[in-house]
Every structure is written in structure tokens, then in C-alpha cells.
């Protein structure tokens, strides 16, 4: 039995089991309890596309990683301090993520010959075969203990076995000195309609806690003090929930009712689900018959005067392309949220990537530039969605909000903002006009046209996908077409006058500038902090605004000797920068594995060019 001292500033725990073992819930409950305790957290669900993949196989392993700390936490962590492996396949799939000092909890009941063979081991000794015998391995008969704990509960065997994740959670709560109250409260709420399940679940959680304290296998427990966070009220929030709330916030600020037309797609569905709850705030959701109807109902709603939203992921963005062009040429406000996932085609639906940027930038017929905003953390999805709504409505155009599966499913504590601190949203509604209404007359500053909502006498007009002149009459006149294309592009370009300047983290002038965008922020920022700790001049410019780019972008780039653009694709943003700002030389670091960066690979990549 080895005794290890683990850094108590931060701990990474990875829960892994069969996709039916409830690992996502276990991880979420651990994360929520830690957040409520006052720790910084960051989570990363890593699950297969199959709801119930073949039992006991590596392809069916579902994982949930949570990083808990008393210090600032920006990533779910690269490698884990504690790995929970509910079966041999989970151990096989995740052993590579265990630090050399890691503690590994295994359910020995599942490590029988059949289980080991099903996981594809060559020998009957998985621990040796995986070369993890030097880790602190806690062998516990979790299934047996759960059955024992609940033998008098009146539950059937199947239901009892489903509770083994709660037993495991109890063990982890003991190891990390987490209070049980938060989870008790959760269970009471969850099983409000099945009260007979409340006590058994509490019992098995408590028994797991006591078991861990009674066995001597766990020599050390770890205390992670609450983080020194800014004063205020906090809550835990996932990226998809924050996106939904940011959209509702934009609706409230503008006074324009929110309409979301959408079609379920992984990993974006949770936004539609979240919006569907909030009818109390006037939110209308329409689950359409397909992706195209999702965006088209939204376009209809925009014409009729609602704040229109459609949510999707990569394949859905492909299907929505033509309609997105329609929203662009009719100059109607629309927010399209793309929670990016691994592609092309169906790709690896549950895995994260940034491979839709090219599609967002260029994926339409004709001259069709569209504003693009990217969210950089789960809680930042709120602001990103709010501003996407503000710019869409005030500038009368579709805005693509890019988030990622990593952000959408990930969660973190969030200091709750106050709506009074957000700017007003003033869409350019028009109530009357003199003479015939001209639908494509523009505001000379923003180049936005006006929003003439049906129902207002005297403003009758027609819009559509056919090219028109300012008066709204169909026109195939060559010079009119060129003028209208230029005006629509100019409107998008002028958004640069309204977005904030790009910020630089670290020295404003120096050796190396790391450039990133979207959900890689946490990893890039953590890497930069490591360089700063070593006294190295490495700065970070992380872009929330992709199109248009902030106006000071060139100025920033000019202050650094080397620029390295890091992104989870083959180089979409770097190619865009090369086209937009060709005066600079760019290096790039790319990863297309359906996985987030790990901090170490960024550090290594930058060290290679230092």
C-alpha cells in the first residue's frame, strides 16, 4: 500500500464506467457539490454516441472528468489524480489519463474473467497489462457492497445495481471531504414523485462514504479549501444552459419576444430543452420537423417581429445553409447557435472540435458574409449569446454563435451577473413612413435596414431571396446587384465599430503571441500562466469576435515577433487571418482528435519555437 501526498490546491477526478452506469450523473453531482462548497471547478463529459453501447466493451465507456480547486481553474485538467473505473473496459480506456501518482478505484466485482475478456484484455491481469500496478489501486467490491447496503430496501436487484454509482460517489465524497447535504437535497428533489427512492439512495451514498472511511485502503483524505473567489452570489452553469439564458436575457433587454425554431441534435439539444422550460418568460420554442424548418420557422418569426433563434450542430448548419443565405439577403435578425462537434458528416457526434469555422465563414452560395461570435468558456456562453442577440437585432442581420460540445456540456461556477449591468438593446423598428415604404433603406451609420413588422398600416412591403433594389422591387440590374452585395458586406464590416477591442493577456509586446478562439481558452490561458510563472514572454490573444475581427487586431499582431495560432481543426482561423491580415507570418498548432487540447501539448509546441 503506497501512501501519496496529493496537491490539495487542485484535484482532477475521472469517473468512468459503462454507458449505463450513471457516470455522467456521478460526475455532475461531485462537481455540483464541490461548486456549492466554494471550489473552482471545470468539467468535461466524454461519452460515446450510443445510449447503451455493448455492455462491458471499451466502445461503451462513458467518462466524466472534473477538476476541483482552491485556485483558479480554467480546464478540466489533462491527467487525473483519481480514476474511478467501474469495470475493466473503463480501466482500459482511461488508464492512460491517470497520473503516475494517481489513485485508481475499481469495482472488483466486475473484474471477473468474462468482464476482462469482454474489455479485450490479452491476459487476466489488466493492471499489469496496462502497466498501472504502481498506482494506488483501491480494490473494492462495489456491486456486492451496494447490494448489501440495499438488501432491505424493497428494491429489485436491477434497481439496486443501478445505485452503485451512488455508493462510489459516497466513497469519493469521503476522500475529498465533501459534505453530503448538497446531494441529499438533490435526491429529495429528483425523487419527489417517487419518494420511496429517496431514502435508499441517501443510504447507499452514506454507506459508500462510511465504507471509504472504514477501510484503511484510503490512507489520506484531501481537503480542497474553497477558492478565493470574488465576492458575490455564484451558481454552477453549463455552456448550453448559459447560451439559452443569454438569449432570454437579450429578449428581455430588447423587449422582443424570443422564438426558437430548432431540431434536436447532439450536442446542441440541451439549449432547445432549456429554452422550452422558460415559457414563463415568454419564450416560444418550436421543435421543427427538420433542421431546415428549424431555421425557416425562425426566419418567419423574425419577419413577424420576434427575436428569432435556431440552434444546431455541424450537420445542421450544413442543412441550414440556404436558409441562412435567405436571412442574410432579407436582412432579418437571427441568431444561429452552432455547438460544434467532430465532423465531417456525422463524424464523432459526442466529441468536441472547432471544425465548423470554415463552414460558418464561407459555407453559403453567393456573396454571403455573416457575423461570427465565439464563446470561450461555459459561463461566457451567456454573454456571447446576449451580444449575438444584440448585434443581430440592432444591425438587422443573422449572427452565427459558435460554441463547442466541450463548452456546451462543460460547466463551471459563475458569479451571477445583474441584468442592470447589461447594455440596452434597441432594434431599429419603424412604425410609419412617408410615401411608399422602402424596405432596403439603411441607417447611414450601421447600414442596417429597418424592421417593419407586419401589422403596421402603410409599411406593406415584400422581401425575399431574389435580389432587390432599395425600394424592394426585384432587380437583376448588374450594378444594383453589385451595390446591394457591397452594402450587405459593409454592414457586417461596420459591426467592428461596435464590438470591443481585442485584449491581450500577458505582455502587450514581446516574443510570442498565442492566438486562439472559442473553447480552447482555458487550456491556452493555463499554458500562458505556466510560461509567466517561468518568466517567459508568451502572451495570449483569444478571439471572441471572428467576423468582423476587432479593429486593433493588426496593431496587436505587429507587437510580437512570432504568432502561433492554436485551434482544434486543421487551421481554419489561421487561414482566415492569412487572408485578412497577410502582412504577418503565422505559425500554427492544430489537433483534430475530437478531444480538447491538453495544456502540456500547447506548452511543448510553444517551447519548440521559443
Amino acid at each position, binding site marked *: 500500500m503506497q501512501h501519496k501526498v496529493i496537491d490539495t490546491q487542485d484535484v482532477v477526478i475521472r469517473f468512468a464506467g459503462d454507458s449505463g452506469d450513471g457516470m455522467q450523473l456521478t460526475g455532475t453531482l461531485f462537481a455540483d457539490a464541490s461548486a456549492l462548497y466554494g471550489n473552482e471547478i471545470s468539467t468535461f463529459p466524454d461519452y460515446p454516441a450510443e445510449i447503451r453501447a455493448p455492455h462491458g466493451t471499451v466502445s461503451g465507456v462513458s467518462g466524466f472528468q472534473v477538476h476541483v480547486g482552491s485556485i483558479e481553474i480554467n480546464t478540466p485538467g489533462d491527467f487525473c489524480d483519481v480514476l474511478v473505473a467501474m469495470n475493466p473496459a473503463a480501466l482500459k480506456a482511461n488508464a492512460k489519463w491517470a497520473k503516475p501518482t494517481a489513485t485508481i478505484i475499481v469495482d472488483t466485482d466486475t473484474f471477473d474473467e468474462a468482464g476482462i475478456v469482454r474489455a479485450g484484455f490479452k491476459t487476466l491481469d489488466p493492471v499489469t497489462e496496462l502497466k498501472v500496478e504502481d498506482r494506488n489501486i483501491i480494490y473494492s467490491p462495489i456491486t456486492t457492497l451496494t447490494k448489501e447496503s440495499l438488501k432491505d430496501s424493497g428494491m429489485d436487484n436491477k434497481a439496486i445495481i443501478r445505485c452503485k454509482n451512488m455508493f462510489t460517489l459516497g466513497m469519493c465524497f469521503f476522500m475529498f471531504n465533501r459534505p453530503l447535504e448538497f446531494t441529499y437535497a438533490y435526491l429529495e428533489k429528483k425523487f419527489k414523485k417517487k419518494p420511496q427512492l429517496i431514502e435508499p439512495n441517501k443510504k447507499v451514498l452514506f454507506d459508500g462514504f462510511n465504507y471509504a472511511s472504514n477501510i484503511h485502503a484510503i490512507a489520506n483524505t484531501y481537503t480542497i479549501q474553497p477558492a478565493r473567489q470574488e465576492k458575490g452570489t455564484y451558481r454552477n452553469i453549463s455552456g448550453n444552459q448559459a447560451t439559452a439564458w443569454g438569449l432570454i436575457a437579450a429578449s428581455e433587454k430588447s423587449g422582443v419576444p424570443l*422564438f426558437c*425554431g430548432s431540431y434536436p441534435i447532439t450536442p446542441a439539444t440541451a439549449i432547445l430543452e432549456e429554452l422550452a422550460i422558460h415559457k414563463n418568460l415568454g419564450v416560444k420554442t418550436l421543435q*421543427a420537423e427538420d433542421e431546415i*424548418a428549424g431555421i425557416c420557422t425562425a426566419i418567419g418569426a423574425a419577419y413577424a417581429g420576434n427575436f428569432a433563434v435556431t440552434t444546431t450542430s455541424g450537420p445542421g448548419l450544413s442543412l441550414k445553409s440556404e436558409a441562412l443565405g435567405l436571412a442574410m439577403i432579407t436582412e432579418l435578425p437571427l441568431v444561429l447557435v452552432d455547438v460544434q462537434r467532430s465532423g465531417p458528416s456525422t463524424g464523432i457526434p459526442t466529441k468536441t472540435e472547432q471544425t465548423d469555422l470554415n463552414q460558418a465563414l464561407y459555407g453559403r452560395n453567393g456573396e454571403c458574409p455573416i457575423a461570427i461570435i465565439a464563446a470561450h468558456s461555459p459561463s461566457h456562453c451567456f454573454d456571447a449569446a446576449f451580444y449575438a442577440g444584440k448585434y443581430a437585432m440592432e444591425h438587422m442581420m443573422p449572427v452565427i454563435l459558435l460554441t463547442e460540445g466541450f463548452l456546451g456540456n462543460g460547466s463551471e461556477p459563475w458569479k451571477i*451577473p445583474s441584468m442592470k449591468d447589461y447594455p440596452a438593446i434597441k432594434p431599429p423598428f419603424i412604425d410609419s413612413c412617408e410615401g411608399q415604404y422602402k424596405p432596403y433603406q439603411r441607417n447611414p451609420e450601421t447600414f442596417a435596414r429597418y424592421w417593419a413588422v407586419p401589422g403596421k398600416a402603410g409599411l406593406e*412591403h415584400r422581401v425575399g431571396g431574389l435580389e432587390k433594389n432599395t425600394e424592394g422591387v426585384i432587380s437583376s440590374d448588374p450594378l444594383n446587384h453589385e451595390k446591394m452585395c457591397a452594402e450587405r458586406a459593409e454592414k457586417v464590416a461596420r459591426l467592428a465599430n461596435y464590438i470591443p477591442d481585442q485584449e491581450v493577456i500577458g505582455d502587450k509586446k514581446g516574443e510570442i503571441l498565442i492566438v486562439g478562439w472559442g473553447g480552447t481558452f482555458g487550456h491556452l490561458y493555463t499554458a500562458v500562466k505556466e510560461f509567466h510563472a517561468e518568466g517567459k514572454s508568451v502572451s495570449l490573444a483569444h478571439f471572441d469576435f471572428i467576423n468582423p475581427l476587432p479593429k486593433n487586431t493588426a496593431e496587436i499582431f505587429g507587437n510580437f515577433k512570432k504568432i502561433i495560432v492554436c485551434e482544434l481543426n486543421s487551421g481554419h482561423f489561421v487561414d482566415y487571418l492569412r487572408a485578412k491580415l497577410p502582412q504577418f507570418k503565422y505559425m500554427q498548432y492544430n489537433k483534430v482528435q475530437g478531444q480538447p487540447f491538453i495544456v502540456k501539448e500547447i506548452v511543448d509546441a510553444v517551447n519548440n519555437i521559443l
Partner: protein
Amino acid sequence: MKYTAQDFKSNQEVRWCPGCGDHAVLASLQRALPEVCEALGYTKERFVFVSGIGCSSRLPYYMNTFGFHSIHGRATAISTGMKVANPTLTIWQATGDGDALAIGGNHFIHAIRRNIDINIVLFNNQIYGLTKGQYSPTSKLGAITKTSPYGTVEHPFTPGALVLGARGTFFARSLDSEINLNKEIFVAAAKHDGTSVTEMLVNCVIFNDGAHATISDRENREDRTITLRHGQPMIFGKNKDKGLILDGQKLKVVKIGENGITEKDILVHDATTVETGIHSLLIEMKYPEYPVALGIIRDVKDMTYDDNVRDQLLEVKSKSTITCMDELLHSGATWEVK
């Protein structure tokens, strides 16, 4: 305010081919809407005309109302969003057999299933006109077109059957040139709560001239079509001497006065019955075995999507304790850092 047809005419030049059946449908609509306004107390600015792509989809430009000429097949989805977003609008949709039944088939059936309160006018000329003469989902089996030089090898849709299959609550059929009947249908469609589908059999003079001629020729029209009216016996023919009876599970054409048949034996049309049986038989009637059914075949009451959305919103609102964003932000589990 009292309107005339003139109020609904836009200042834009109508660009359909001379002799195209669409002209007559447009005129019927422009004549029907003043009556709709009078009957329902509507003002002109609440009308929105939505369309997809195709010859008939140019219609919104010719109506002096709000209009949205969208993309191929998607008008139904756009109309749906409009109505849900702003239920005070009166939405009319112009669509063709290709637009509604081929590329837009999915949206078409789902709008009908939801029974969203929009009025769909389906211009069925059994051909793709704007792309210059390819077969459509309603072209007759064997139709020779540019993309079927040896004849089509697929069955056409019967649009009304599709409407019934999708739980449709209103279906009417007419001929482009039947301006008075069209007007009557459009007024009823406007009064109907839910999706109304009016199939207009229109003639494409250029690419499919005479597609409906066997039934639409003035000479034979009365003998080869039957105009159904709710509560009236199903009698037709130049001499009003033919009728429909139920023979087993089929309809049968009979002559009044022959084989002891009197007017009392003739079926009476009930457009309001929820049962689809007779409606389905009427919709499927084809010449020469039967007269082709015109008029309002089905007009039944059912809940509408837009009403249900509104009611649910109000109900949830009345029960919720969260009334604004700040309250939502602070709902659920939160903690204080001091």
C-alpha cells in the same frame, strides 16, 4: 374599413405568361379578401403573403400586402414561424406542386398535422414551369416531359389524400377559371381555424397546356366535375340529373330517375364530419369513372397549434414564480462568497 379588390393589387407588373391560370387565381384572391375583411373585421395590414419558389410563388409581389418570397419548398415553415410569433397576422401561402409536394413535402405535411392557422393555396399545374417543363410529383403516370422523354414511371400524389393523411382539417379543390367558386372557397378558408389547403387546378399554357382540359372544358365541365356544398345533395351534370351514392365501400355515379333512384337516395355532403371515409372517396374520384370533386370537401374543427402555444404560454406564466431574468439567474442552487 371597406376594401375593394383594387386595394389588394400592388403596383408591380404581373409577369406570368399570357393565358396562365395563375392570373385567374390572383384575381379570385383579390376579390375574396375584401369580403374576408368585412366578415372577420380584418384590416389589410394584417395580411402576409408567403411563397416558396416557382411560377405561383411570385404571387406575393402582386398583392399590396406584406409579403415574403422565400426559398424553394420552405414557405410552409416560414409561414408557421410567422403565425406562432405573431398570431394576429393572417397568413396566406402561395405554392406549387413542386414547391409544396416535392422539395417542401416534409414541411407541408407537418404544418397540416399541427393544424397551424395558415391558408395554403396549392397551384397544381402538374409540371415544373419556372425550370421549363420537368415532371412534378403530381404529373400523371407516363407523362412525357423534358426529364421523362419516355414517360414517367411513378405514381403521382393526390394532394387531398396527403392532406387527409396528415390529419388535415380543411381541403378544397377548384379550377383556376372558376372565379366565383374560388372566391367562395377562399372566404371559407380564411374563416377556418387551422391549416386550409386549397388545390387550384391551374393550366400551364406553355409546358403542360390542357393538363386539366378533359374536366375544365366549358363544354364538359358540368358533366365531368361535381361542385360540393355542405348540406347539399351530391348532384351534378348539365341537367342536374346525376348524383353520387354509396355502393358498398365505394362511391357510385347514378342517374336520377333511372333504376328507381330519386333525389332522396343521393348522398348529402357533410364537410364537417371528422370521419375521413367519404372525404377520402370524394378526393380520390377521377374522371372518367367519376366526376372530379370541386368545392370545399372537408372543413372540420380541431385545436390549432398557434392557439395551443398561446394558451400554454399563458398557463405557465400564471403558475410561475419567476418573472424576469434576474430571478431566473438566482433560481436553483446558488452560494454566497463573502
